[in-house]
């Protein structure tokens, strides 16, 4: 019976979430912040692995990342809405809605074409954003400080509170996604990845699956963008640049599509490598990051998630 409890997704998630929240009290502020950022990136990565389960990789998640960030930012500066949770939620919904609109355009394409078209969409958005001076053009703009249920926390605790909020919201999202992955439509998505033709001949629509997955990915990307913007207090068109999108793809490939927590671990890993190589090798951090990317793709081709799965499978078998 306790074993069964340990295998329960909700139980695992709550355990992990509480652990992180408690740990957050003891770790230094900068690490809290890095983890918050990793969560933001991880959310986008989670969107990509949702797509990956359906056999697609988007090389343009900067598109939704940017939309999410700008949604939160514009609501903050123009409409005076500063409640972080509300902003995250609205960005999630709005970006998901945008995703739903463009998904049918993209869902007809596969493989590299899907990747390139999504990249092209993000480039178009980049072109638009740097052109609009009213929202800061290429400089972007500063977000107002966020509040929680109408209370604005003092600066010392702001990072930690956002950290907790992001863990809670991400936890909920992760649980829901796990349920989706395990549900019948979630399994059909996996089937689309393997053999789209057969799925059609079994009477299900690969197109619909892709649209749904893309919409979810868009929503998650938007939420990640909003979280990133809120955490940093600043938004600029770099959110939608192709190099940003490249990092998201890297996170999801490093994580693999088998495990949800692996995505966040991969994101944290990338954040730390980037941050430390930038700190200790300011001249050659790109080299280090590049070599790190190549090595991890060579040595962990199916992602960190595959270790998780092996580990849990062993655990279950015992």
């Amino acid at each position, binding site marked *: 019976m306790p074993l069964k409890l340990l295998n329960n997704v909700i139980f695992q998630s709550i355990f992990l979430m509480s652990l992180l929240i408690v740990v957050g009290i003891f770790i230094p502020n*900068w690490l809290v912040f890095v983890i918050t950022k990793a969560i933001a990136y991880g959310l986008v990565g989670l969107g990509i692995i949702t797509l990956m389960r359906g056999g697609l990789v988007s090389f343009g998640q900067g598109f939704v990342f940017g939309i999410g960030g700008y949604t939160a930012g514009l609501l903050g500066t123009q409409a005076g809405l500063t409640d972080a949770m509300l902003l995250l939620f609205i960005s999630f919904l709005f970006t998901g809605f945008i995703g739903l609109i463009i998904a049918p355009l993209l869902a007809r394409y596969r493989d590299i074409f899907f990747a390139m078209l999504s990249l092209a969409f993000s480039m178009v958005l980049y072109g638009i954003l740097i052109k609009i001076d009213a929202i800061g053009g290429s400089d972007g703009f500063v977000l107002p400080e966020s509040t929680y249920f109408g209370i604005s926390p003092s600066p010392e605790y702001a990072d930690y509170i956002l950290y907790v909020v992001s863990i809670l919201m991400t936890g909920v999202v992760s649980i829901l996604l796990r349920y989706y992955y395990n549900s019948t439509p979630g399994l059909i998505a996996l089937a689309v990845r393997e053999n789209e033709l057969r799925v059609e001949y079994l009477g299900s629509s690969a197109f619909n699956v892709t649209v749904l997955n893309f919409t979810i990915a868009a929503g998650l990307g938007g939420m990640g963008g909003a979280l990133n913007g809120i955490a940093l*207090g600043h938004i600029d068109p770099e959110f939608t640049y192709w190099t940003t999108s490249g990092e998201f793809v890297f996170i999801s490939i490093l994580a693999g599509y088998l495990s949800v927590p692996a995505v966040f671990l991969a994101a944290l890993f990338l954040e730390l490598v980037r941050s430390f190589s*930038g*700190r200790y090798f*300011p001249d050659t951090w790109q080299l280090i990051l590049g070599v790190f990317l190549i*090595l991890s793709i060579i*040595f962990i081709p199916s992602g960190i998630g595959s270790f998780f799965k092996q580990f849990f499978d062993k655990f279950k078998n015992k």
Partner: protein
Amino acid sequence: MKFFRHCLILVSSMLVSLIGFIGVTSADDHKGFKIGVVTFLSGPAAEPFGVPAWNGGKLLIKLLNEGKVPAPYNKKGFGGMEITAIPIDEAGGATKQVQEFRNLVQRDKVDAVLGYVSSGDCMAIPSVADELQALTVLYDCGTPRVFEDASYKYVFRTAAHAAMDNIAIAKYLIEKGHDISSIAGINQNYAWGKDSWKDFSVSIKKLSPNSEIKNELFPKIFSGQYGTEISALMNSKAKVVHSSLWGGDLQSFILQAKPRGLFKRTQVVFSAGDHVMPGLGKQYPEGVILGARGQYGMMAPDTPLNNWFYKAYMDEYGVFPAQPPYRMVQGLMGLKMAIEKAMDKNGGKKPNKDEIAEAFTGLEFEAPGGLVQMKLGNGHQAIQPHAIGKTAKDKDGNIIVTDIVRYKASCVNPPNGINAVDWINAGFPGADC
């Protein structure tokens, strides 16, 4: 294979945690004065701005720590405290910089951050700086908006904003009797380029209402290909072509425009044109009117402090200092003065950030480029004198700057409380020339 992979992951995660550990522990060392220096070390802005600036900064920090800088900067380090600097690459956009800034403040526990060339970064950093209560010196960026749109407690800018560059050029053109009946501009399509063009074209319109504006070109930043733009500028037959291009873009523009006769046919003005002179050497066109964003490099004043710095830099790097090292040195000197002023007041202890911020506000100090006064933005934004000149060839064929006109700081900078754009639009009220 699988075993190997596991090992790899284990080793790399250990490595990361180890570096993290070093990062955390080294942060506790607090005897000297630790600053983070953020400037471009990669990307297109590194060669023209970041690297020469950091060269100047490195040199000054070394000499300060050795106590070899002439008075009033002859105290070792910052008020006797040894300076340690952590260089950080500014490339990657404002959002990345906010994170790097937090890392510097929270992880490395620096006492102050000196940095930022890009206006986008300067717009993004101050609010975080105030939130984290971290002393921050913006040393280079140009946008006037930083202290016009908001006010900050711990943020200072030790260099004048960009409005002065273009106001001074407009004044120079008129004083020297150039034909400004029609003007055209080529500026990069982002805040810097657009603001520069606006400041310049409005200034010209104010000083000479009959001038006609021809082309207003805004090519993409880092595009590197200007053939079409050059054709358009030459087709327009404007008498004056203004540009605030910088770095590789400016170099490429010059290289592409020169053989096509643009500089012969048209009076070209570069609002920040000096910093590519060391690189281009004899390829730099003659007859160009240029500013250096201050009295820097070839337009620096003949003062002992400047002569000392010019020579020290020349000896170290074999090339004369253009604006970037001047501006970074100016930032370091301002910080040093503020710290030492605060120490005078608190009895020689290492001052805390509030004491330094208080001392910094309204500070006046002598830098190689002339007297810097923290007059705008309620004592947080510097003004400084400016100089405009014209390139010519000396007898050996080297490019030099002649016909230099110097402007008082109060002549080309708005008074406290008035936005630069409003001041220009109002026709420079209260300018003291």
